[in-house]
């Protein structure tokens, strides 16, 4: 209710008399955003989104709080992402549940940029969204943030054959993740499992070496060309002098030979 009250007060203020140049510009933009022609309103919303400064930011939040046509809302939501302002949390929390999947998607992307720890719960919840694209951006955001708390939900997403989870799991996974993935052999599509394991191996910080060996062994058991490709990639990536004698390199070589190169 606070944001709404503020929004309505701002409407009243902007409609009143004396104001600075910035306020005047914003008042003009506001009028344009609130005109019935949706395309022009959207253009104005994009211009507002490009404006720097706290007053413009507040106006974006207000416009989103008091409601607008979806095209305008979409333009304004995009602006919240790169601003990374924690104060956007309240408005975004409302929009991650919007009935319009496009708006949900934009809100999730923006939410992913917020440092606010409250964002994590909503991003994990978005992994259960009915729309693939929304789940996908939520997974990407969680992977980018390397949110370990999302691991269980992301692995569940993998079991739902959802490609969106591959990069995210690979980004946040650790030794225990690798073991869990090994146990899900047969429950996750072979190609997704291979890509996820491959993603883990590509990370410099993933290890220690015995865990890498285990991951390569698991990869060796996964049938199909994706796993072979992943093993070949790993072999190539570890073919330098320093890495040639690593257990995981040797294991990858062995696995490829056993698969007959396939």
């Amino acid at each position, binding site marked *: 209710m606070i944001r709404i009250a503020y929004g309505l007060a701002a409407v009243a203020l902007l409609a009143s008399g004396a104001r600075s140049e910035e306020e005047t510009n914003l008042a003009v933009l506001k009028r344009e955003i*609130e005109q019935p022609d949706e395309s022009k309103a959207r253009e104005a919303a994009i211009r507002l989104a490009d404006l720097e400064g706290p007053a413009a930011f507040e106006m974006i939040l207000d416009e989103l709080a008091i*409601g607008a*046509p*979806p095209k305008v809302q979409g333009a304004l939501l995009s602006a919240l992402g790169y601003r990374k302002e924690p104060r956007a949390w309240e408005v975004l929390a*409302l929009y991650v549940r919007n009935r319009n999947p496009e708006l949900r998607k934009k809100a999730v992307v923006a939410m992913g940029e917020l440092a606010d720890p409250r964002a994590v719960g909503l991003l994990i919840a978005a992994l259960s969204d009915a729309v693939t694209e929304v*789940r996908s951006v939520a997974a990407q955001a969680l992977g980018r943030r390397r949110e370990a708390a999302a691991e269980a939900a992301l692995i569940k997403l993998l079991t739902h054959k959802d490609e969106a989870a591959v990069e995210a799991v690979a980004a946040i996974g650790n030794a225990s993740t690798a073991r869990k993935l090994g146990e899900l052999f047969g429950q996750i599509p072979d190609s997704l499992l291979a890509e996820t394991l491959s993603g883990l191996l590509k990370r410099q910080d993933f290890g220690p070496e015995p865990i890498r060996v285990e991951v390569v062994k698991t990869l060796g058991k996964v049938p199909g060309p994706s796993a072979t490709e992943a093993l070949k990639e790993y072999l190539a990536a570890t073919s330098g002098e320093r890495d040639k004698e690593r257990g995981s390199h040797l294991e990858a070589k062995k696995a490829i030979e056993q698969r007959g190169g396939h």
Partner: protein
Amino acid sequence: MKTPLLSLFLLAGCLEPPFSPHARDNAVEDIQQTLRRIQPAIAQKRAIAYLVTTVPKHLVAYDLLAGKVLWEVPADITSRLAVGRGFVAHRQGAGEIAVRETSSGALRCTHGLEAGAQFLGMAADDQVYYSQQAQNEQTRRSHLVALRAESCSEVWRDEGSGSLGAPAVHGGIVAAPFAYQNVVFLDGKSGDEVARVRAIEESITFVRATAEGLFYGGNSGVFRFDPKSATGTKAGSSFIAARFPSDQLHSFYYWDAYQPAQADYTAFDRNRLLWLPAASGSEGVTLRDAAIYLHSYRYFFAFDATLGTVRWAYVHPRVDVVGSDDVGSALLFAAADGEVGAIDARSGTVAWSRKTGLRLAGATFDASGYAIDKSQPAPPIEATLTAIVADPDARFTAIKVFAVEALAKLPGKAVTAALLKIVLAEGVAPPVQSKAAEALLHRRDTESAPLYREALGVRYDYLSDRQPRAVDVLARVSAAIVDPQAVELLGAHLLDPATPRPTLKEIAKALVVLSETKSEALRPLQDLLLSYRCDPAFTTDPASLEQAGEGLLRHGGAEGHRLVSFVAAEPRTLPRLAAYLRKALGPTVKRP
């Protein structure tokens, strides 16, 4: 001046041939004389089920007391059996009547039916009686024939024009419905018409003989044949119409005597009312134990015919019951898989049953001697009714709707839980679910609020493959019982993108009701209104937004009024919504 003998003939209506359109009807003296002629029944302690198998067609005599097959013979049976003294008769193939020994099933004799005439049914005592009907372009010609059971030779043949139904026989008097309005009573030995009853108010579609006499009736009830029959009316006759607890139950008191299809074992044997008249004095008609039973395929219900309440229900497992009969203390049954048994008429428990291993098409019971010694206590009816509703057999929606209705009349939290389970279950027929929802609303069971909240707590979750169910019903129930603790859950559903749009209206309505006692209910309404007031997806049906606005206006105080005024006046608000809210605000608010 008539001679005394002639007067007697006139009184008895004997000057007219049987089935004459000019015969006297509704004459008390004819009825009294006919009743006097009825020979007392000889009590026989038999308990035999005659079972007709599917393919190959066999007739099997099963001793219900000994629990064993007495005999089995191949027989092309194409009608229900008539059981006489020492014999059974049936139509065989399309063209003949066959009479068989009850001791062995051996064929005694056959009698050719009139070719081209439809067979309507038969009855038996010492003789066999059957009726047929032939129709050409202009006329309908019917005949009722009596055969000697020993030789199948004709004793007499009565012919008439017009519709004639399947006969019944009791104490030497043969009765048959005639021309839809009449029941004609004939002397079994001579075929002479001895009385006629004409129903003034409705069609007569059956006659039935029981140990208690002759009964006739149609769709609305049963008449006893007694001197009061002369009035021809329900009010003036000994008449009973059973009361039923629901209009979902469509069944009939007895087989339609005019329908040739019902002369054989058909679906009509699997879906009918079972009843026995009580032994009574000289007048009136009541049902034994005031009970009437509905056999509907795999289900049996016992009703109090006077109060119209359900006494018990029984679900037969897996297969249809193809034949049944009320023998007083028990309902005998035969199922399609050959199981033969007896249901305790007082409790609905299975008193005994045996598997014969036969595949059955139909059954006829000759079991006046069958009785249950000791009645078992009835199982809890709510459990049986719940089992009926949960039965995966999808054929019986009407029965399931009725089971819900019956369940709804029972008190207690367990019943509420059962109704809720029906509402939330997947794969239940929509009419059954909507009846259960109606019942939940009607119950206003505040004690079950935690159950409703538990159901409301289920939210859409892709990862867990979880789907909330019946949120609209739960919202209405929460409002009906005014459960403020449901506000948070309802609010979450209102703002959940997975909630179907038509459901939003019910949730909004519920939150408006609940906002009267809990102001937190206004928050989700406000969020909904502001989030979607400009959304074209709500153009055609803004009802949920209208509800939200109205709620804020009604219970949101000055702040709510200010918000709704803003939405109503803001030019981007959906026109239909804005118009609605302006009207709700009153004449002072205008679009700028």
